[in-house]
């Protein structure tokens, strides 16, 4: 009986391996510079799009990157509408209960606060905006005396600070810094308040796709080893970004 099961499992794996030569990767497409829509061409671009192309070349996979709303990105992975998530998704224990992750392709990233003024209150009694079901919203929810204001898209969290609805926004530092830089002083990063959260960003995969995970792990390892991953991080996040 056991042998029979093993044999059928092998058959399943075999047929799976053949079909997995072509996979779909989902991204949010609203998280510059990780993944966003190119303003001129309307195509998906960004760090993760470039990275996906390189990883797939190394893993000998044919990949197609598609867009999916953040809210439903994990349920749609599980119902098999695509095979992987690369959407700036940090590796957390919470998410690991539902899906599995490849090795991280960015170092544990800094999350930071951005507010309208440098002396903005982020402690007792503050209202902090964060994107729904993110590692940052989870962090804010645990802070005593702080009110969490959740939004569906990252853009809305920034808008909430601009119109005074929230005292500050808490998000990935790499996302906020260009916005603060562009605002002409209207928005400032709160220095010295950075928090390192999560285990870095990884490729989100179905728990049953162990073979695909192995392929991504190997490809990420090889990019870490030859320095091409660091080069890509530097290209998108600047020379000061944390590297491997």
């Amino acid at each position, binding site marked *: 009986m056991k042998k029979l099961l093993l044999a*059928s499992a092998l*058959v*399943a794996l075999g*047929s*799976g391996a053949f*079909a997995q030569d*072509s*996979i*779909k990767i989902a991204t949010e*497409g*609203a998280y*510059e*510079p990780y993944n*966003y*829509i*190119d*303003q*001129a*061409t*309307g*195509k998906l*671009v960004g760090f993760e799009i470039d990275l996906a192309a390189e990883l797939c070349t190394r893993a000998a996979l044919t990949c197609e990157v598609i*867009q*999916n*709303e953040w809210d439903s990105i994990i*349920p749609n992975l*599980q*119902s*098999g*509408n695509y095979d992987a998530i690369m959407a700036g998704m940090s590796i957390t224990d919470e998410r690991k209960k*539902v899906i599995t992750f490849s090795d991280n392709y960015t170092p544990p990233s800094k999350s930071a606060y951005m507010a309208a003024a440098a002396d903005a209150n982020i402690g007792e009694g503050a209202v902090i905006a964060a994107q729904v079901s993110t590692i940052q919203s989870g962090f804010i929810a645990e802070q005593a005396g702080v009110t969490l204001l959740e939004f569906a*898209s990252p*853009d809305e969290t*920034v*808008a909430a600070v*601009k119109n005074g609805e929230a005292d500050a926004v808490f998000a990935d530092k790499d996302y906020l810094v*260009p*916005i603060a*830089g*562009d605002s002409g002083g209207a928005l400032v990063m709160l220095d010295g308040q950075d928090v390192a959260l999560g285990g870095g960003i990884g490729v989100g995969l*179905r*728990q*049953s796709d162990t073979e695909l995970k192995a392929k991504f792990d190997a490809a990420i390892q090889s990019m870490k080893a030859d320095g091409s991953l660091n080069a890509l991080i530097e290209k998108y996040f600047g020379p000061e970004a944390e590297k491997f």
Partner: protein
Amino acid sequence: MFEFCADPRSLEGLQWLGCYLTTATHFSFYWSFVIVLLLLAVTAPLALAFGFAGASAARSHVLPVSWIGRGYIAAVRGVPDIVFFLFFVIALDQGLEWFKHLFVCDDLSQPVWNNGEFRVCPAAKVPLGTASPFIVSAYSFGLAVTTFAIVFGAFAANVLYGAMNAVPRAQLETAEAYGMSHRQVFRRVLVPQMWIYALPGLSNLWLILIKATPLLFLLGIKDAVYWARELGSAKTSGNNPYPHGDWRLFYFLALLVFYLVSTRVSEIVLTRITRRLSRGQATRAGEEMRKGGAAA
């Protein structure tokens, strides 16, 4: 699009705006209005067909058929739209794949639903993983049309059911007295006369349908509201050729104009249809038209 758009950073004023409004993303935005109109054009007749079938079934003298009709109307009308659009679409999609799975997959020993994951063999995927992007969009468009038609069909069925009952009994009795069968009465007398009673309810549904199209984004179709949000959201100067602040207000104003115009156009068309259908009817409007015609 224009030659001078090659370097947007050097542009100013109207030229900048001209280039900005003709980017590929903006054409997707304009195209999404066509998608919305197309969806309306396909869904409305289909929903009406569902409604007609539902209403006819509910009126049937055969009990099981009548139960099916009434059950459909009651069940769909009772479920919140948003639940329907989130749950039903996934259920329909998974149901199709599960059904196909039973026929095309060689290995049926693995459970399809397992540990929160839904897994069928690659050959049972709908659409297939190798399908062209056009097929994928057509499939999600088809899912959207079906869902809209089922939801709005139930409401339309209720409206038509009421309209069928509103046709004066005397009209039907007269037809029966002429020796028409049940089917003949239904086709020649009841259906032609019921539309005028159904129209107010149906026109309501039509306007609600127009407003409900932003639910398309839940179904993975990039509609006008999605593009308004994406294009209007603030763009930083680092990676974007046309950086700007939060412009969502302007984009939503454009949407407002679009929806108001389509509502107004619908109203004008519906008024005409009402006039046309009132002619010769045993209603007050029909009577007034008859008198007006006699006086002139």
